[in-house]
């Protein structure tokens, strides 16, 4: 699975990254994390409030850091 975090280095983008890395370690998940910082690339997803979270091409959240339980649900949905 490929996870992309869309964001130009805002503090919430970093929080989201840390949260995902922590979940990965805690639950032994396997995914590749990509940070997308290029504005044009971010806009291709229609995202205007960072961070945006994209799981395997599907935009899941915009402008917030989702709760851990929410992230886990999405991760499970996508990896099936």
């Amino acid at each position, binding site marked *: 699975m490929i996870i992309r975090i869309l964001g130009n280095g805002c503090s919430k983008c970093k929080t989201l990254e840390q949260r995902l890395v922590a979940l990965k370690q805690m639950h032994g998940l396997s995914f590749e994390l990509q940070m997308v910082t290029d504005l044009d690339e971010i*806009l291709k997803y*229609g995202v205007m409030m960072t961070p945006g979270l994209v799981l395997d091409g599907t935009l899941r959240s915009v402008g917030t850091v989702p709760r851990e339980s929410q992230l886990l649900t999405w991760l499970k949905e996508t990896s099936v």
Partner: protein
Amino acid sequence: MKEWIKFSFLAVVFLLFYFAPVSGPAVVGSLAAGLALLQEYARLHVLTCLVPAFFIAGSIAVYIKKDAVLKLLGPAAKKIIAYPVATVSGGILAVCSCTILPLFTGIYKRGAGIGPAAAFLFTGPAINVTAILLTGSVLGWDFAVGRLVAAMVISIVAGLFLAFVFREHDQKNSSADFAAGMESDIPYSNAAISLFLILQLGILVVFGLGIDSTIKATLIITMVAAVLAIAVFKFRKEHTLEWIRETWDLTKKILPYLFVGVFIAGAIEVVVPQEFITRLVGENTLLSNAVASTFGAFMYFATLTEVPIIQKLMALGMGRGPALTLFLTGNALSLPSMIVLFRVMGKKQAAAYILTIIVLSAFAGMLFGELL
């Protein structure tokens, strides 16, 4: 960083302290003035203005449904709606200046076009709730309202002007996924959210009123209790936690810089000679407004620090007109933001935008100085 740069930096600091006249009147005086202003802010503005303002900004970030606002700035938006929405949306969408650029680029390249985008870019930082509230608390509400109204008018004029000049460059956008993923999961009624916001604003307003202290305390305790009751019993736990986290995030981001800015502002009052300021920007002339406008355009003010700096410049004799001008360009433009603008908008558009803003701000400040 190369090692020799580190070394020369250390050497400069060492020499500075070796030779500095640390017990001289200029150094002692400016340190004392900086500390005095810090104390003034800590006593008068932090609890009564900044703390409620941060909570209000936090609530806006969490509870206001942003997708509805953004949809009005999309590619299909009518111009007559897009412009006014763009000017006020800065206060709702962009609680922090770091969120402005993606929104601006989105509106410009995929949404309503260069005019509304430019209008949003200008008011975004200027119209931010905490900045307006602190301006009112420190410099008076005529200044806060003047700042708000002038920013809104200028942004519409500048946006229309740019849209006219670059009407051929403005490509027709037709992107279906504009503002994708913004559908919020906030299930509360508009009435509940409005009440929540108004109560918090009420706390801030009552703090500023000169009424009997028992009545004041009763009112504030009642309103704080009501806000807490809504947050705990009406709103879901996850949203309330999000509200607190958002507020804390803003506080962390803004307050340290503000304290540094306040200290510097206090020190400036002693170091900068009064006649220099009076001669340069003391009177409400075209020249002094132009000076204030250009200075503000290049100078970078961290969020909110413009307030203590302008407060002290006024104490040194800066006129009301140039002060408002400085408010207008100080937030909207800075050297770093100009560089980014050139990259995103293209050279011609960016230069036109910057010049328009500098000229319009100078005139707006002059008008404010004449009338009020």
